[in-house]
């Protein structure tokens, strides 16, 4: 307990109730375990970021959209979609369009804009149609995005 006070000549440490006491006492076993866990967590975080920094290709967003399910609501049909970004960059203001086709002709179109789709992540949204998607061919497209 005296070790940490040996360097103090100026007598500024006379306030005995100083918080330095907490650090001055020899650490118990539990403290070492806590310190080890803390070090592990911070080192892992740093390691993961370093790994991504070095191996990431820094390429553009790679967006794709798939249907999750189609629900029949009171006065419309809801097509729930999942938007996936496999790329290394975040896409903002992503526009998704869904078309209902009959004999190759688009009979209804619906679109949504999603705020952010981060890298390697996915977002969920819904498209609303008046006509029954089951009676048509449904085509989903991602139209574009902006860089955040």
């Amino acid at each position, binding site marked *: 307990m005296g070790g940490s006070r040996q*360097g103090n000549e100026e007598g500024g440490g006379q306030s005995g109730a100083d918080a330095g006491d907490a650090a001055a006492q020899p650490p118990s076993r539990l403290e070492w375990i806590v310190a080890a866990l803390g070090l592990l967590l911070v080192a892992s975080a740093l390691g993961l970021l370093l790994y991504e920094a070095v191996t990431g290709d820094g390429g553009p967003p790679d967006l794709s959209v798939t249907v999750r399910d189609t629900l029949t609501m009171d006065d419309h049909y809801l097509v729930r979609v999942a938007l996936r970004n496999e790329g290394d960059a*975040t896409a903002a203001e992503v526009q998704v369009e869904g078309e209902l086709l009959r004999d190759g002709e688009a009979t209804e179109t619906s679109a949504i804009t999603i705020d952010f789709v981060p890298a390697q992540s996915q977002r969920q949204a819904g498209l609303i149609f008046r006509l029954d998607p089951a009676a048509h061919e449904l085509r989903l497209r991602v139209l574009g995005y902006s860089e955040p």
Partner: protein
Amino acid sequence: MSAGSGVARAKSAETDEEARRFRLGLARAYGGAVIFALPVMMTMELWWLGFYMNRWRLLVYILAVVPLLVGLSRLSGIRETYRWRDDVIDALVAISVGATSSAAVLMLMSIIGSGMTTDEVVGKIALQSLPAAIGALVAQSEFGSQSEEEERRKQESGYAGELFLMLVGAIYLGLTVAPTEEMILIAYRMSDWHAIALLLASLLAMHAIVYAVEFRGQAAMPGDVSAFRVFLRFTVVGYAIVLLASLYMLWVFGRTDGVSPHEVLAAAVVLGLPGSLGAAAARLII
């Protein structure tokens, strides 16, 4: 303490004094609640979360803060507390102060009002009342004078107490920015090298502040062994706590759903900047 002659007079004077101090403490609590929580109450993401936040998550959010408030009450609080039971009561008082002040301010600014479902109103008040409750408990040290008993308890709380104060500091500063869009925008825009630099800068800033606060009054950093020990036990562990607190806040406000671990980590490091400053300076704030 009052020194009346005659036991009965002394006793009633004591209870009067205690009641007066409680009222004073309550007034300070309301002040602290509004001052701390006002920026939070004027953040639109928290209004939206009021109606779209998953109710189970909201429950976790509410329940998780209670032990935090109890611990805070032990070290700070509205009035002197001698038993754990008193701290629990103080925590509940803080929550009610938080809830009533939030409801009043939200109504004043027309963020809650007629025409909204009960669910939405309750959600909005619940979300705002927790930062307000923390503000209520911290108010005592901000505005009032801490009793000797509390000062002593703080000094003697040891390592666990230090870590707890760091946690509270991290949440205190982090809560104001955690739900905002700007925070994830920063995370999404920056490169991994930025994130690494931010992490190291946070560690450095924390260490500088922790050293300045912990060792004030001592001439120099006492010896190499101790310096390393301080870094490990306070700065590194403190930053680990900050990261965990950031991850928790991100999860509670729905910023982790469907997002890759890498992006979540980047957001946690961004949130960790105010968090680590709050943690390091906790001894000064709380």
